[in-house]
């Protein structure tokens, strides 16, 4: 008997008798012989629970996680503190183990939580309608592209280079499928080049994609940039970091038709990138075009308030090839985590946290800019992440910082060849002023050491992008 099953030999015999089969093998007769595997799978033998634990713990041990390093990595996912009640509640089997709430009478817990989630995201973004969530950030951006085609009939997107590189890449991947062309608009001193954007948008443009704060951490003037979209009847799609929406003007107040983004900062752990969730909010006009589940309020036959999956006529299980999206299993539990986290932060706490981040970020930016060999990559306003230029090879500086137990940031050269010397530094409430000071010291020491190494071996050419 394998773990987790319970059919004893007696059970099997009784069950086969009831079926009228000699053996379970007979049940597989429908599989043609030549297709049968007829050998054991080439996988290790099953292990006891303790052994599996040890094996996985040994793998985990080989990762430098944020419990061990002071983590200044960001780039869309952030090492925020997830309050203990989030785990306690999301690990309750009643939330952890059910399927999508197809039977609303016995799924009110999940459905009401979705409704609360939608309200919170709608409040954060200042847009009237929120879905119950999509997979994650970048694919939500791509989903907005699909929506824009359906809503406008146009197959051309204008995209800021400040949009997360993963979002741009995912939009491109999807566009190859549903058929759309993408024009990219560059950045000027950290923010989207407004003139170039205005020039790029035309009557064929279905959507304009912005991100604020953008990938370099700069807060964009979404309202001003969005004018081009409005003028040409294109949708304005704004990707945002939900954790900044306690202090930044929300997309809905800046003319966005769609606000979306990566939900991880809200109550979800890093998990090497997932699972998290994508949030997706829109205007009233778009309500029947939105992707994914939406919970709605209604009444039961006795007049009791209740919640159901609303507007299912948009969805694949009803509309099949005419659905607004193909999504089925989404990220309900992750959205629940966000809901609990936001309730825990509350109206005041959420704003305070945003302010805390903005202030520590300002401190860190100032502090790091004083380090010899470090300068700001741009001067645009920032609230939780900012970009530097290092006067030494970034990867080697990162290695040296790692030796001190600091993940100093994200090397911009991975995605922006023009910023091979760029380092993106993210701040959360877990990054204390002391850690920021330690980072400053580590960066300074690393740069100095690298310059020394460079000078002492003049045969090596400075890597590209480093002067």
């Amino acid at each position, binding site marked *: 008997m394998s773990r987790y099953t319970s059919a004893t030999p007696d059970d*099997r015999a009784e069950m086969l008798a009831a079926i009228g089969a000699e053996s379970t093998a007979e049940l597989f007769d429908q599989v043609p012989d030549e297709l049968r*595997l007829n050998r054991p799978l080439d996988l290790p033998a099953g292990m006891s629970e303790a052994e599996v634990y040890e094996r996985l713990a040994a*793998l985990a041990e080989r990762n430098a996680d944020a419990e061990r390093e002071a983590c200044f990595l960001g780039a869309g996912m952030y090492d925020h503190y997830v309050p203990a009640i989030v785990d306690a509640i999301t690990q309750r089997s009643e939330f952890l183990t059910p399927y999508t709430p197809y039977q609303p009478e016995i799924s009110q817990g999940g459905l009401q939580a979705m409704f609360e989630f939608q309200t919170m995201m709608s409040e954060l973004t200042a847009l009237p309608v929120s879905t119950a969530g999509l997979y994650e950030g970048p694919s939500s951006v791509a989903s907005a592209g699909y929506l824009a085609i359906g809503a406008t009939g146009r197959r051309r997107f204008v995209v800021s280079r400040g949009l997360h590189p993963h979002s741009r890449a995912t939009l491109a991947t999807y566009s190859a499928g549903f058929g759309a062309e993408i024009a990219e608009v560059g950045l000027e001193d950290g923010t989207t080049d407004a003139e170039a954007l205005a020039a790029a948008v035309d009557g064929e443009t279905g959507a304009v994609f912005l991100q604020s704060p953008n990938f370099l951490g700069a807060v964009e003037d979404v309202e001003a940039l969005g004018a081009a979209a409005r003028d040409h009847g294109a949708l304005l799609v704004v990707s945002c970091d939900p954790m900044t929406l306690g202090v930044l003007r929300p997309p809905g107040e800046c003319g966005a038709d769609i606000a979306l983004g990566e939900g991880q900062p809200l109550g979800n752990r890093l998990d090497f990138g997932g699972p998290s969730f994508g949030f997706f909010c829109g205007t009233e006009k778009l309500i029947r075009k939105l992707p994914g589940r939406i919970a709605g309020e209604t009444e039961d036959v006795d007049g009791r308030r209740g919640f159901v999956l609303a507007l299912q006529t948009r969805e694949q299980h009803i509309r099949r090839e005419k659905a607004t999206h193909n999504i089925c299993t989404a990220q309900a539990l992750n959205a629940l985590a966000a809901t609990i986290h936001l309730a825990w932060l509350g109206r005041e706490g959420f704003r305070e946290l945003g302010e805390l981040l903005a202030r520590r970020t300002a401190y860190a930016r100032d502090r790091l800019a004083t380090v010899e060999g470090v300068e700001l990559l741009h001067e645009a306003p920032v609230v939780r992440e900012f970009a530097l230029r290092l006067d030494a090879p970034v990867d080697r500086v990162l290695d040296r910082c790692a030796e001190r137990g600091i993940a100093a940031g994200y090397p911009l050269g991975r995605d922006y060849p023009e910023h091979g010397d760029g380092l993106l530094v993210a701040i959360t409430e877990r990054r204390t002023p002391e850690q920021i000071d330690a980072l400053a010291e580590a960066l300074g020491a690393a740069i100095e050491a690298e310059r020394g190494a460079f000078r002492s071996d003049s045969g090596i050419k400075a890597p590209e992008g480093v002067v």
Partner: protein
Amino acid sequence: MALTQTPMQAEAARTIFEKSKPGRRAAVLPDAGVPESPLEELIPAKLLREEPPRLPEVSEPEIVRHYNRLSRRNFDLDSGFYPLGSCTMKHNPRLNERVAALPGHARLHPAQDPRRAQGALELMWLLQESLAEICGLPHVSLQPSAGSHGELAGLLLTRAFHADRGEARTKVLAPDTSHGTNPASVTMAGYESVKVATNERGGVEMDDLRAKLSDEVACLMLTNPNTLGLFDENIAEMAALIHGAGGTLYYDGANLNAVMGQTRPGDMGFDIVHVNLHKSFSQPHGGGGPGAGPIAVSERMEPFLPCPQVVRRAGENGGGPFFDLDADRPKSIGRLRGFQGNFGVFVRSYAYILSLGGDGLAEASETAVLNANYLKARLAEDRAGKHLPVAFDRHCMHEFVLSGKPMKRELGIATLDLAKRLLDFGFHPPTVYFPLLVDEALMVEPTETETKESLDAFADAIERILAEAEGDPDLAKSAPYTTPVRRLDEVRATRQPVVRQAFA
């Protein structure tokens, strides 16, 4: 005292917003520890928010009570039998939750340098290898976030594959029994969806397939066993046909739980498979996710796999192997999402594979098939056998489909009524009204982790409900009675949608 409503029904639903009171709070935040300069000095006022979002103002004890009580308004797999067809509601081991929560996994930043994330990358690589072996296909991408994402990935691969050969095909075939995500993905990938008919044995109607094949067809999407729970014996011939016509063969892996270690999609001739880790590989469903939908592909599809790909490189200087993220894949379709995929799900599913091992997986499928056939046999007895015949009468694989048509005609209760009445008996109903092909369909998937006793109890409940209905069909038609709310007005929720809290 006669009760008119259960205690839960007596408790009206109140949202967290309705429990809010100005000035209450749960979170206490650390001091900034840095100068408390006014925000306007840091950010131009026009970029700042004026009014904070109206998040609830509640204390921590209230939050805990609120969601705790809400949770009890859910039915869940850890409380009862959940034979939801096509969903593989198998046991969710808590070991998996434990290992996923290890800080080395849970707090690992996705942008960490691969050299400092070797454990995570090795785990992903091991999972890829395991899935490749289970699927019988050599290459795996873990990136897709769920089954439907995997479908989209597979169709984009198909497009890239054909484009690489200079072909532009426009149609994708799928049986009329296929899951809704299949045609939805087809449209999303820019193809036209074409239905193929089902034959009297529940398999693909070969003549119809042949008729619809052409050089416009990019792909044939199947699941085998199909959504009727039946294995299509003609699969080898179908593979030959679609390959002959220059198309790819896609395997919707939602039903993989029937065949692990028994037969492999790759051996059947499939080019692309998606695997729902949240079905066969025990990731909890979370009330609608998260999941993950890795794809396994044949050699010819490999160049097009998404970026980045987890690879194992030979170690330097004779050291151990090095695991890396490979983004240098010129023919790749590119990214399907941010970072590397739903890693937390990978940890859970890999723990599951390690726990069961190769034999355990094979036995899981075998037992899933045994349980399904047993329950089918029990439901062929007595009233169920009469009013709820199985749609295609032969051995099933891991699930089977009944038709409520006779029941509706003879007893006056629809499949929906039966489903709702089952709620009062403490069971989650089967999937209803799918596949579309079967009138008043009930799709039953017990999974291997259920006991014979729970299958028997379910069969007994169906029998009792049908017996009840013979006497008084209204009992089922007005069910449920004991749930926190009773039948809900779904039409209104679509016609006059109220999708968020209104504030005074």
